[in-house]
């Protein structure tokens, strides 16, 4: 099978493909894989050490890697990961063709967008009004958690169709905050 990745470094973006026989079973905790990328073939010996931590031997090079899935998804319905290799952190998107098709079919990317709470907390301020036009980057509301006030900003220019939360309300991660059209 072939997996399509997009690697980000600031504004630079590179597309890469990784070929491998098949993904190991979700229950497997270690194994060996032959992988191919950029015309090169390598033998990988992998072991899942703890949730999100892997030990990889690529030939005799040892990599202790931590990976964190980011909430939400990138354009084209890819899954976003932050991969930590030693002192360095990289952002990487794994394209998901099935999801992309679904998303395109639904026209989700062009249509309305639900803004979800990126963390649990309390709504201390609602700055936008239903029906108002907002610019990309404009503050929509403020969530307080852990003694910090965190502004939620508009991911794109649009109109606030609906606001689901009121000031003073508590929200969980992923709760719907408002709907942008």
């Amino acid at each position, binding site marked *: 099978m072939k*997996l399509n990745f997009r*690697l*980000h*470094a*600031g*504004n630079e973006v*590179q597309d*890469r493909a*990784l070929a*491998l026989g098949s*993904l190991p*079973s*979700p229950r*497997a905790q270690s194994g060996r*894989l032959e992988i191919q*990328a*950029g015309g090169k073939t390598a033998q990988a010996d992998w072991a899942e050490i*703890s*949730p*999100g*931590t*892997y030990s*990889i031997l690529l030939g005799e*090079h040892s990599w202790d*890697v931590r990976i964190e*899935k*980011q*909430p*939400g998804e990138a*354009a084209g319905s890819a*899954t*976003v*990961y*932050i*991969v930590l*290799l*030693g*002192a*360095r*952190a*990289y*952002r*990487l998107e794994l394209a998901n063709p099935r*999801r992309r098709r679904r998303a395109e079919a639904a026209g989700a990317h062009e249509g309305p967008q*639900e803004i*979800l709470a*990126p*963390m*649990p*907390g309390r709504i201390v301020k609602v700055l936008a009004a239903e029906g108002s036009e907002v610019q990309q*980057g404009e503050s929509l509301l403020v969530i307080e*958690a*852990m*003694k*910090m006030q965190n*502004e939620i*900003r508009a*991911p*794109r220019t649009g109109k606030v169709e609906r606001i689901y939360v009121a000031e003073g309300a508590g929200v969980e991660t*992923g709760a719907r905050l408002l709907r942008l059209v």
Partner: protein
Amino acid sequence: MFKKILIANRGEIAVRVMRACREMGIQTVAVYSDADRTSLHVRYADEAVHIGPSPSTRSYLRIDRVIEAARRSRAEAIHPGYGFLAENPDLARACTKAGIVFIGPTAEAMELMGSKTASRHAAIASKLPVVPGTDRNLESLDEVKRLAEKIGFPVMLKAAAGGGGKGLRKVESAAELESAYRTARSEAQNAFNDPSVYLEKYIEQPRHVEIQVLGDHHGNLIYLGERECSLQRRHQKVVEECPSPLVDEDLRRRMGETAVRIAALAGYTNAGTVEFLVDRDRNFYFLEMNTRLQVEHPVTELVTGVDLVKAQLRIAAGERLTLRQEDIRMRGWAIECRIYAEDPANSFFPSPGLITYLRPPSGPGVRVDSGSYVGWRVPLEYDPLLAKLVVYGDSRASAIARLERALVEYEVSGIRTNIPFFRSVAAHPDFIAGRLDTGFIDRFLADGFPRREMPEPEAQLVAMLVAALESRREAAGAVTPVPATNAWKTGGRESLLSSWPARR
């Protein structure tokens, strides 16, 4: 020495104080709110008194309940930690009234030093260096304008009752002054219930250097070197070190002696910190005094070999300082990072929740002061400081190499932390070269996080492989932290990150 004391705090600092007590044979009493029943400080204490619901205004900030808990448990003294009631003279006074020792300075010393304008006034009266500006609240816009012209732009407007970066406003020119004055007053009113603001010369690329002092009840007052605290985000310190790369023997002695004179103005006792701004020409200006133990006290402990918490307890028990100024010798170099439950790849949003895995770093020269453990749910209600990673080496270079090593070892799952962010900081050429100022972190973040470096080919391969392996679970329908459809889009996060420097 005391037989039993109460610690009016939570988290890592409560555990830190209890560790000292346990080593000194002192019994400890914890106080806790609903959210903290299984927090480490409750487990660690010999006794634990419930003092109210989760919001700190109804628990940790309730002087009456703290005093009542101390009374009931027959604690002889109260250690306030930092934050919460630590700089509230009313707690010190309530202690005195209840016949309990307050482990800190007197209420009077706290009041004099706690007010920035009062302490500034006292320093000026004693001809000690302060940042050019006003030494009192400004009552009209006219006055602000006149003074700002006199001092010269840029200037800073600051809340008189402020702290933690709230109510701070930099003003570049006379045109901005009116709106800045209004905003600063309104912020000060909201944050501190007191609109008073004052004016200061803005120091370009200032460095924040502070001096640790210790005073006993027998007239002895000494300084224990400096700490460099220039690395700040949102005006909050995130990395501190001792000594400062900027400070040499001579400057240390001059700043130290100034700090001791300032503390003496208030008849200061116990541990305290005198903060200075240092400009590019190494002129130093008194900024304020923190009348408590600082978060970053461990860096001083590692370099001087003095246990500041044990010293606090001995001083409060009436013992004489056995250390004289000439006994304080600095050996080696220490650096601290504040490990927060926040997501550096997602606008540093808070990240409370269950800690599912933890592998703290260890080995030579590594100290972790923590209040967390695997299986503990980091509460939403309190500040996100999980732990402090402190490293020690024989030189700044070896301490930095060790810091990077320790940060790479540090593994936390279940919640996000700023550890990956610190890894990048520790590897940054300006940090390694000691080119620090209070704007460093903002400039660093202007490049975004993760940073703008494409991995080399083998690292790319490994990153893709691990993402592929990790995606096995998702493909199989395992739980994802956020619903996958219509999620809060990454585009939003990106724009937040790139707009970061413009935000306060």
